């Protein structure tokens, strides 16, 4: 038997989480370094996965399959396609930056019990989330996916509720209350989504008798498994609901602004750039593959919801006074684009959506982490509390600008390519929806540039006059992300090469072909 590479990629951060949690209370710094090392080692494993993966090979590669819970028809089955590889790489790439950016976020303030170890907990939880996200990308068994999709909520919940910004406009007491509110809201939304999915998972078992993607697909192809139309639609809705909460799609999005606002910047990045991707990824892998007919049936409604997300998220982002909330609404708008690309059912759309997941991860991480550095300096999240920062901290302002420009999809930066692909993919099939979605770009320019203008330009506010520029650690976090943004903006081929074959497969699952060019159709 070959080396179980995929298991190792998920198990390494899991073990790292346990080890980090076990570091004695006094050795805080050791815990941080341990977490960083583990995340880097995981990145190395992810790179091995990336290298070993052959884009033109079988659909699922590096597969592993072991009996797990026979009574439920569950097998521990892992395998990656191009989409999963890209997202695993993104996850493994972002975690070291998240760890590094959150280096001081969990240093204990007060002297509690000697056994109270927030720092160890913080980094252990981040690694635990990483492990669960990676295994959800790898799972080709619906049950295995579901288990980690749900279990992920618990460490995430503690990260949101247990660690927040030091500074808060209403004092520590209010901050704790709001944090716990945000955490509970996050958990309840996702738990309800997950439990509804559980009903659908059980339904799938009743219909299909097992959970293996490959087996179910095969059974459907050779006709041994027939799903009644209404059954398929109900099951699809059960799955999609959970993923739409996670993604999040309007109108199930309201937990995200609270969660991102109250958590520390690195955790906010973890939520939006890493964890939420599981939702959109799962739409591609599970909704489209398991329920192709129902997916096509639901497409019109989902597209409308996606467009509403795009425009509504962007509009609300324009109106925000809180930097982190602004980024959260911007993310909702971007998730709208991703869902739009997935359900436009064109290969450009889906390639664009996958690419968008990667690019959104990187660009949001860059913007949010710099915003986090900014907020930690001034101790306020309110846009109005800043002004003229570019004069005192030019590097910070510059990186902030690049992150912002990436968010508004400036050509030359990575998100442009994906957004363009999504829009092209949508136009060819649904021109009206494409037109409306384009407004999202205009609004993105508005909220990003206004944010930059209000915080960075203008006269220097007295409170920010002594603001130090980015430190070495912070530069190490931001610089590689910006380099990547520029690189993938100019040369996205490495990612698209990996992703495209997988997208073709998914397209053939739903039996959709790209619409032919207009001229031909006119004949």
């Amino acid at each position, binding site marked *: 038997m070959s080396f179980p590479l995929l298991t190792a990629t998920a198990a390494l951060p899991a073990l790292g989480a346990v080890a980090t949690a076990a570091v004695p209370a006094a050795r805080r710094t050791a815990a941080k370094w341990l977490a960083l090392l583990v995340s880097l080692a995981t990145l190395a494993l992810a790179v091995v996965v990336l290298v070993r993966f052959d884009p033109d090979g079988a659909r699922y590669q590096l597969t592993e399959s072991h*009996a*797990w*819970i*026979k*009574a*439920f028809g569950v097998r521990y089955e892992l395998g990656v396609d191009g989409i999963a590889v890209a997202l695993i790489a993104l996850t493994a790439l972002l975690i070291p930056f998240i760890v590094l950016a959150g280096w001081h976020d969990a240093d204990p303030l007060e002297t*509690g*019990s000697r*056994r*109270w*170890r927030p720092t160890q907990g913080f980094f252990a939880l981040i690694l635990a989330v990483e492990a669960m996200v990676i295994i959800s990308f790898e799972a080709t068994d619906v049950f295995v996916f*579901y*288990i*980690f999709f*749900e*279990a992920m*909520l*618990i460490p995430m*919940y*503690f990260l949101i*509720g*247990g660690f927040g910004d030091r500074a808060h406009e209403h004092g520590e007491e209010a901050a*704790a209350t709001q*944090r*716990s509110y945000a*955490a*509970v809201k996050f*958990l*309840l939304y996702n*738990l*309800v989504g997950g*439990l*509804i999915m*559980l*009903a659908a998972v*059980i*339904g799938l*078992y*009743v219909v299909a008798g097992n959970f293996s993607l490959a087996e179910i697909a095969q059974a459907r192809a050779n006709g041994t498994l027939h799903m009644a139309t209404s059954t398929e639609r109900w099951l699809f809705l059960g799955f999609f609901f959970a993923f739409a909460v996670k993604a999040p799609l309007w109108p199930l999005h309201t937990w995200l602004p609270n969660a991102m606002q109250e958590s520390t910047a690195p955790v906010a990045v973890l939520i939006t750039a890493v964890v939420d991707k599981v939702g959109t990824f799962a739409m591609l892998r599970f909704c489209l593959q398991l329920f192709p007919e129902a997916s096509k049936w639901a497409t019109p409604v989902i597209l409308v919801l996606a467009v509403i997300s795009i425009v509504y998220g962007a509009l609300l982002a324009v109106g925000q006074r809180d930097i982190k909330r602004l980024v959260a609404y911007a993310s909702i708008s971007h998730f709208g684009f991703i869902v739009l690309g997935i359900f436009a059912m064109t290969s450009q759309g889906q390639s664009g959506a996958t690419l968008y997941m990667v690019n959104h991860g990187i660009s949001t991480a860059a913007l949010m982490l710099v915003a986090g550095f900014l907020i930690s300096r001034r101790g306020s999240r309110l846009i109005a509390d800043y002004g003229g920062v570019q004069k005192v901290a030019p590097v910070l302002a510059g990186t902030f600008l690049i992150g912002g420009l990436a968010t508004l999809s400036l050509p030359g930066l990575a998100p442009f390519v994906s957004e363009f692909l999504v829009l092209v993919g949508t136009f060819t099939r649904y021109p009206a929806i494409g037109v409306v979605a384009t407004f999202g770009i205009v609004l993105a320019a508005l909220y990003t540039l206004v944010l930059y203008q209000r915080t960075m330009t203008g006269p220097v506010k007295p409170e920010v006059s002594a603001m130090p520029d980015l430190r070495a650690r912070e530069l190490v976090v931001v610089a590689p992300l910006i380099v990547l943004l520029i690189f993938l903006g100019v040369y996205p081929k490495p990612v698209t090469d990996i992703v495209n074959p997988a997208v073709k497969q998914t397209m053939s699952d739903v039996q959709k072909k790209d619409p032919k060019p207009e001229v031909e159709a006119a004949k």
Partner: protein
Amino acid sequence: MSAAAVHSLWTTAADPISKIDAPKIEYGQLSPTLIVVGAALVGVLIEAFVPRKGRYYAQVFVSAVALCAAFAAVVALAADGYGTTKAHIAAMGAVAVDGPALFLQGTILLAGLVGLFTFAERRLDPEAHGNRVDSFAAQAASVPGSDSEKAAIRAGFTTTEVFPLLLFAIAGMLVFPAANDLLTLFVALEVFSLPLYLLCAVARRKRLMSQEAAVKYFLLGAFASAFTLFGIALLYGYAGSVSYARIAQVVDGTVTNVDPALAGTMGNDALLLLGSALLVMGLLFKVGAVPFHMWTPDVYQGAPTPVTGFMAAATKVAAFGALLRLLYVVLPGLRWDWRPVMWAVAIITMLGGAIVAITQTDIKRLLAYSSIAHAGFILAGVIATSKDGVSSVLFYLAGYSFVTIGAFAVVALVRDAGGEATHLSKWAGLGRRSPLVAAVFAVFLLAFAGIPLTSGFAGKFAVFKAAADGGAVPLVVVGVLSSAIAAFFYIRVIVLMFFSEPRPEGPTVAVPSPLTTTAIAVGVAATLVLGVAPQYFLDLANQAGVFVR
């Protein structure tokens, strides 16, 4: 020897006396129960003859040995094939020795053993007058607050009678799910209920509350017993027999010869419906299903916490076992009549338990309502009426009982000057002061909530799967929705423990002896093992999923 033998025994009573066979009792196959009853009797003798100083150790020793021996006997019987191929009905048709019976007996014995550890814990309260004290009153008969009570405390009395009472209760519970005729069922019901009523009354702290709980439990329990007995009488009138097999045959219509003494009533469906409704009602009372759940919160809150833990776990196991056997062996022919009713009961139990739990401010009451909601989930599996349904319920019960005992053991640790600090507000910030205890409790709560990778999820999945397979999809949907509601209040406790500031005069966490530590550790281990690698236990439950008829 089967049910018919009992029947003929009664109808041929007029014949010459020499025709009565000596009853044939398979002592080996009944050994688990007999061992426990024997040990309980030894316990009574210990109370009578062993000096006060030595009683505690003698009782704990005898009880632990007996429970281990009984469990070994169950394992031996199961290994011998009595759970599968050699399953049959023993003791003149009174007791079934089959898969579900052995599985549930094993679960009850293990739960009893873990429960015994929490009963025997003597390190939680500070020593009183140089004597180590447990959770039970110094002298249960003395009036609370009276001089005689003070004298008893000063003299270092302890109520070591709790150990034989525990054993008697366990013995009754062992017979309850195995009972194969209605009279045995009723006797077993009383044998395990009466000691439990007593055990509820003997808390060391908050004695009035404890006594109140016992009185409520006793009165309502007696009421429920009366219903059960009435139901038994009606069923006898219907079938002319108390034997499960015989009643089932009459229900099926395979037996039509009318007993001349019962010619007016036999085969009368009104009797059948009323009788089985009353009987099922008595059992639903014991499992704490809505609308027969009213006793649960008060009793759970008032009873000494070790008793609550044991009772919450083991009573449920025993009562669900009996309910399963009744519905699957006696009344399968009546399926179309009881299923809609049980649907309704399951739905209101799930929703009722989950919704009312939200407003609770006392941790023991909260767990009581949560146990009601869980009874609803288990009922969903009961309703499946399939082999899968039986095995999923067995698995659920096994997982649930260890979580429950562990959770109540943790509750017993959190104390302030007035004893256990059960008010939720006192639990604020517990996670900062004692991260380990809070984390363990969080694991139990997550298992209750059915989060994946815990036994709660595996059990819930098994039960819902069986229900969905049996066509009860709406029930599953209600089930997941009430799980979501339930998750809210479990999570609320976690929030309180981890994200709230500790109160300055908050409770302390007692450092327990290895006994409670073992109970909690077993709970955590069972929670995680059944959650991550449930296959072995699911297989076990699956093999045990067939009732002997």
